[in-house]
């Protein structure tokens, strides 16, 4: 199990498009991917879930990956957050 914390860097937050990118990326891996924010626990492979997070710029999220390819999954997803979803 890998746990880490990320900060939302992109201006528009986790709105529809970045949310879709996140879900798409996470779904490439077999590992389970959960996102925690303000007491909410959301499946990171579910677009409706990620949209519900309403994560705006600057908010912090806790991510948890669990499964055979958890390391690769974590790396790919964290990279997305770091790059601000390539949306500048």
């Amino acid at each position, binding site marked *: 199990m890998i746990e880490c914390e990320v900060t939302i860097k992109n201006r528009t937050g986790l*709105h*529809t498009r970045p949310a*879709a990118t996140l*879900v798409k990326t996470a*779904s490439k891996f077999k590992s389970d991917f959960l996102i925690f924010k303000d007491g*909410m626990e959301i*499946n990171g*492979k*579910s*677009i*409706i*879930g990620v*949209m*519900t997070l*309403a994560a*705006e710029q600057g908010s912090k999220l806790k991510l948890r990956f669990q499964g055979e390819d958890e390391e690769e999954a974590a790396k790919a997803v964290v990279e997305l957050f770091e790059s601000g979803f390539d949306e500048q």
Partner: protein
Amino acid sequence: MKSLEHIAARERVLTGIPASPGIAFGPAYIFTKAIPRVEERELEPQEIEPEVERLRRAVEKSAKELNKILLFAQKKVGDAKAKIFEAQIMVLQDRILLDTVVDRIRSELRNAEFIISDEIGKYAHLMRAARDEYMHERAHDMEDLKNRVIRNLQQEKLVSRLEGTFIVVSHALTPADTMILSRNHVLGYATDLGGVTSHAALFARSLKIPAVVGLGAISREAETGDPMIIDGYSGTVIIHPTEKRRKEFERRRERLLKFEAALAPLRDLPATTTDGHTVELSANIELTEELDYCVVQGSQGVGLFRTESLLIGRDDFPSEEEQYLAYKKAADRIYPNRVLMRTFDIGGDKVAPEMAEEANPFLGWRGIRVSLDQPELFRDQLRAMLRASVRKNIGIMFPMVTTIDEVRRAKKFVLETKAALKSKHIRFDENIQIGVMIEVPAAALNARSIAAEVDFLSIGSNDLIQYLLAVDRGNALVARLYKTFEPSVLTTLKYVINAAHRERKWVGICGQMAGNPLAAPLLIGFGIDELSVVPAVLPEIKKIIRSLNYARVQQISREALNIRTAEEVEAHLRKFLKKEIPDIPLDGTQIS
């Protein structure tokens, strides 16, 4: 004894607006649509997999609908606003969400509607709780999506459920609902909302199915299976009628049918006044299925073929060939008389493939505006109409025209289509008549210059009146302000008729007003050349016209123009008609 009292006590009488004549007896069927009611139902083990399959199909259908809306929206409102549909489509493709729903159906043994409503509802609830305004809008989208899926789930069930004959009871009915339901054995329609000239009411009339609208809360008062009487003449609906009441209505139905039968001999006679003035009396139709009825009723032609009915119950536009076959069928059946075809009038409250939502659809993208923005659709339709015109009995008219520029652009489309057909040696009527619907006040004021550019005008009184009076005819809160005999309406009608005649063009009227017994003498007195009415009332209107003296109605119409209020105009006309034709049953059969 006790049980009898019990039954008697349950009788409830509701009064609404009569929208389509006729009396029917039968059980209620509660039809829910706008905000579907979700009932929790336990599943038997053997029902589980069919239920999952049903969900899959509903999700698939919803995605298909949304993709179509998305395409339309991208074209019309731009990518930015269209995004909301993209988000909805993505949610429909959410594997986690769907898997959760399917797992829950299997483990909790509960129906798809209940589970999907609960699952999406949870997220919508969280979104509503967020502070962000953007999230509140997303919550709305999710509710919308939820209702779409549930609707698709329930529509499938609806068809199989409507076995037997029912009086359909609903909060509101769209024209599409009315039509789709009428494929079953529907005895009548009773709705909470709606006005007499809503399109759903017009549909019911065309289909000769009794309807009462504006009943307030009948969809909550009645339950599926409740015995009911619906009286579309007086606007009465009785839930759990007593035996005595049933007998009373059976006698009433017989009396009214007898009056209708007495009109039959008039059917083959022309609509000529006692002093030899003839007007053309034709019928409005929605569907080619109505053609036979329209001929049986003694119509001289079709004064309005609402072609948008071809779009009902499908999620794409009919091909040119499909349209051609429908138009040809109408032209052949009515030959040697004429069929006036109105190009698609989509938008407003009309049947439309789902599009981007408009805040003000009646002031929005509808009628000729849609056609001019969609050149391919428009050309397909014009080609189909022109190809069907070889017997020279088709006229084409354009709805919702506001300006001369629109008339010219539409005519240019016709010219181009003609040239294209000619280059391919396809036959059509070179001199096909082109007309414009006068529905927008601006077009009424501009009637003379419009008339100069076309062969005829046709007054669409329903829309013209609602635009003139700024009253949404489908809004029960203001529907009473929709008054056919407002002096402003009379002045406008007279103005349009004179304008057409000054340009030596003929002018007809094809709204509901044309079929109002009180209005017929007024319109004929104004000099109208053609009345196009719903087939159901055609014999009655013919009887009225054949009893009138033209010189006398000209006089009556002149007097009407000097009256200041709608109520006094109506009283004036009622008094006149009662005196001239005492046996016309004016009370309760028509709403003015």
